[in-house]
């Protein structure tokens, strides 16, 4: 335990006030800022479950490598990427360094910061995203990639979640933000790394840590493919909805289609334009809503227990291989219920569907 401002190590100077440890030796140097200074003390991870041996090995490998160079963590959906980087976060925070987690989706920022808050009791976690931009200081910053411009040269390590996803993918402005914000190393977390990242690994600029197995050891669910003319899609969906258990998530490619389908089935729907996203998702997680229609806003990062998934018009252009892999990765994420069903409905097989199936089968085979 040592103070990050005056490097004091004597425990008699430290007091704990409302969960925050502060150093009283240098407290009067606070000047007019009036901020409570946190002490870089030994931080512990508090998880409700134990990591599997393979997860532990991987998490220590990441933590070791992140001190020196960039790391690409290639893990299948639901492999526990968040848990894998917790060891790294713990080490950086213990050393009094700043670490940030940048995510493309606002919804995931809120869910993830809550998980970090539970896992690191006593650490000040700040979420920074649209609507939460007042509190910019904190030991651990969880933000959307759009907010990275607020932290120039701030992070010793920046964890980029899903750098291959919209809107980060191919956006030069956001790439620039992330380069300016991070003065140390990057950790990329992805289930479906794009060619750019894989090239980095090939050029040996970046260390690769791959995990092809979920913590419960069960195989990834392989999607059922149903190729039919468009006319029959709704009929098949009705049959699927009756046959499989709830809760069910139905993915559609466009907002317009989400609205029409929701009207047809009298279900709630979630798109990037709906205002009551948080409330709807809360109801869905609580089990008050059995079925939910959504666009790709929910394709990544979120965890719903026991969920089953159907994809309407899986041949649409928005559903590329990585997007489809992520969607099928929503299923079977909880430890006690690793099974689940994924259904792809389309009328023409695309490259994306073929590659998604291949990727999942390959990961299952190598696990």
């Amino acid at each position: 335990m040592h103070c990050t401002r005056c490097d004091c190590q004597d425990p008699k100077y430290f007091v704990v006030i409302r969960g925050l440890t502060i150093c009283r030796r240098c407290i009067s140097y606070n000047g007019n800022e009036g901020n409570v200074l946190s002490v870089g003390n030994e931080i512990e991870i508090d998880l409700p479950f134990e990591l599997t041996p393979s997860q532990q090995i991987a998490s220590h490998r990441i933590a070791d490598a992140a001190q020196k160079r960039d790391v690409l963590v290639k893990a299948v959906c639901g492999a526990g990427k968040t848990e894998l980087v917790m060891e790294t976060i713990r080490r950086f925070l213990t050393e009094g360094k700043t670490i940030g987690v940048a995510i493309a989706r606002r919804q995931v920022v809120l869910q993830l910061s809550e998980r970090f808050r539970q896992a690191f009791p006593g650490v000040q976690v700040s979420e920074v995203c649209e609507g939460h931009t007042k509190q910019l200081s904190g030991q651990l910053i969880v933000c959307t990639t759009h907010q990275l411009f607020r932290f120039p040269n701030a992070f010793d390590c920046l964890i980029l979640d899903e750098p291959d996803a919209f809107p980060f993918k191919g956006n030069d402005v956001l790439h620039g933000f992330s380069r300016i914000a991070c003065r140390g190393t990057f950790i990329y977390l992805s289930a479906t790394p794009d060619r750019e990242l894989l090239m980095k690994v090939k050029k040996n600029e970046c260390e690769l840590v791959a995990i092809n197995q979920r913590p419960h050891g069960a195989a990834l669910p392989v999607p059922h493919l149903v190729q039919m003319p468009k006319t029959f899609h709704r009929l098949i969906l009705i049959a699927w909805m009756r046959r499989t258990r709830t809760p069910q998530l139905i993915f559609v490619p466009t907002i317009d289609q989400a609205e029409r389908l929701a009207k047809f089935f009298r279900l709630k729907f979630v798109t990037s334009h709906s205002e009551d996203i948080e409330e709807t998702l809360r109801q869905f997680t609580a089990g008050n809503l059995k079925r939910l229609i959504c666009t790709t806003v929910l394709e990544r990062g979120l965890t719903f227990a026991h969920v089953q998934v159907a994809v309407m018009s899986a041949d649409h252009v928005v559903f590329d291989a990585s997007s489809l892999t992520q969607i099928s990765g929503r299923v079977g994420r909880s430890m006690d219920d690793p099974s689940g069903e994924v259904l792809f409905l389309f009328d023409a097989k695309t490259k994306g569907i073929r590659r998604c199936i291949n990727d999942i089968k390959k990961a299952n085979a190598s696990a």
Partner: protein
Amino acid sequence: MHQRYQKGQRFCLICFDELSAGKSLVDLWLREDVICGKCRSRFHPFNRIAEVMGLKVYGLYHYDEMMSTMMHQYKECHDETLSQCFLFPQLKRLRKRYKGCTLVLVPSAIEKTEERGFHAVKTIFTELNLPILDCLSKDSDIKQSTSNPLVRHAIAAHLHLHSEDELIGKDVLLVDDVCTTGSTMKACAELILPYAASIQCLSVSIHPLLVKSKRFL
């Protein structure tokens, strides 16, 4: 809440020296304290009633350089632990003296309290174990030390009283941390006066200049 004084604590809260440093034999054996003798001797006790603007205020210390440094560290640098050192040696006496009273706090601006994370006056006086009635509020943060005397008297306009009913028939003890001109205390007392059965005033520190010019009671 933060850590309170513990029996096993061995060091001074201010200089972090041995707790026994600079203490007389009597103090060492009979009087517990949270700060060492050297630091305690730098506080200048007042312990009298002073008449401030026609109001009888009981002051515990002179508001001198030491006191203002400590108040700055406590209130501006948010050193919540320091709150114990103001009342500690006199706690027993004060509890006896003000038995049966209801505490009313001289308000600080809400933004200030939120920024600190604790109520500066309340934290000092919770040790008295009296029921606390936070029925006064201040609506804007006017910097008193920088404003001129005319502005200082206008503070009454920024103070508001709510939940008056709970005050009726109570013996009120009005408390504050610093009393420099007494205008805030006076304004608060005037707001409470129509409801309370009796009012007593207690301030941690009183400005010596102000006291000297007045008659001691």
